[in-house]
């Protein structure tokens, strides 16, 4: 399994191919469309992340020391961003998720989506994913 840093560089490389914003967003839209589906049983209000203009459902499970994320959104660009986050965070160890700095977001020119005023939930998504990682880590330590 690739490390978080390696996946980040891979994504930065992919985005380096694009000269303008349109290509970049077209790619994000493609990524949105190819996001693996979340199980319907997890697409429930309890899994909704608040603070998003679009709806975002996030589900996490813990298998063999790794956190597995699945997610969905009703907006495609948001789904594209989720896809990136899942590529990076899913199947990683809790500590690696908690400590990830995610510099790739500004490197690929999506830092505007990090602004709280965009309210597309990227920030809340990252927070929620890290929180899940922390919860699993604590659970494991207490066992």
């Amino acid at each position, binding site marked *: 399994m690739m490390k978080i840093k390696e996946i980040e560089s891979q994504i930065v490389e992919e985005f380096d191919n694009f000269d303008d914003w349109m290509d970049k*967003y077209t790619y994000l839209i493609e990524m949105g469309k190819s996001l693996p589906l979340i199980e319907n049983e997890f697409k429930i209000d309890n899994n909704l992340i608040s603070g998003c203009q679009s709806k975002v459902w996030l589900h996490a499970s813990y298998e063999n020391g790794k956190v597995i994320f699945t997610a969905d959104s009703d907006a495609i660009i948001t789904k594209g961003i989720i896809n990136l986050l899942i590529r990076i965070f899913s199947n990683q160890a809790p500590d690696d998720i908690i400590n990830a700095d995610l510099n790739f977001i500004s490197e690929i020119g999506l830092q505007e989506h990090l602004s709280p005023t965009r309210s*597309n939930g990227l920030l809340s998504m990252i927070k929620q994913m890290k929180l899940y990682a922390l919860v699993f880590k604590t659970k494991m330590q207490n066992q």
Partner: protein
Amino acid sequence: MNFDVNKIRKDFPILSQKIYGNPLVYLDNAASTQKPAIVIDTISKYYSGQNSNVHRGVHYLSMMATEAFENARKNIADFINAENSNELIFTSGTTESINLVAHSFGRKFISEGDNIIISTMEHHSNIVPWQILCEEKNAKLSVIPINEEGEIDFEAFGKRLNEKTGLVAITHVSNALGTVNPIKKIIDLAHSFDVPVLIDGAQGISHFKVDVSELDCDFYCFSAHKMFGPMGIGALYGKEKYLEKMLPYKAGGEMIEKVTFEKTTFNKLPFKFEAGTPNVAGVLGFNAAINYLKELSIEKTSAYESELFKYATIALQEIEGLRIIGTAKEKISIISFLIGDIHPFDAGTIIDKTGIAVRTGHHCAEPLMDRFQIPGTIRASFVFYNTKEEVDSLVKSIIMVKNMFE
């Protein structure tokens, strides 16, 4: 038409800039309008040469500032044809104006078992203050339904009015749909039951002449920043007969007549409701915006806007798959729409990249979005400095969105 939009655009410094390399197309006027240089200069001049606290000092600057401040009140009261400038209270904006009435009028005049009537198309700021008041007083919030076009059901309104109705609070123009409500008819019917009416005028007053005496409304709330003035300042017009009986909403300096530790008596109108140092620069900027509008002539700007609005409606309707939400017969300046199944957030993100400012989301009117069973809309809102060319740019941008997502 004797209306030179290109000349008028030069009055607004912000409009000449580029966003992501494209000329700015500002179509988010329902959220906040841009400011002409005269407003910006007035504020700057105030702080550079006139700044001083009002109503207090006997020194020159304070007297000049007080005079300018009180003249502004007269001018703004005159602009809406209030009978008396004492009936014009400066607030931080429409939201505070409504909250002031909910607190001060609500405490005095609403009691257990009463009902307050609002409509389905209200902005959250004309819903939540009444909800809180109703909870406090054990009163009932009664909501007028709307039809598929986004017009209120007048008959249903009539049925909701009764001897237990304490107030009707309704918007002049819907911020999310552009519907112009028949407020004169609403006020007349409410008055036949002796029920006072508050009008949320935030979206109305910049687009057409508002005459509170002719309307006979009991309260009219509006914000400067939605009518080319600065942010953080607005007004509440209220009939003296209610304002006199209402208790202060904020307490502090300025609003008192005499203070002892045993008892305080309150100042007369309008100062009773203006505790603390007021936003003098804001008031002067507000006044400059009113004068600017007067000079342009609101009849002329209205006529231009309605022609632009027709042009925009037709142009958008021609786009395949575009659905306009809110198709009331009486409608102005605001077009809310959806493009096929594309999420408003997706569309808005791409439209932004083309240098066009539109609003996406629920527009602080979640119950209204629920009524139409949609997550939100894309909203383009126009004023007199917008052009047909800008509408054409929006159309191009929407077609680009369609190509990217469909």
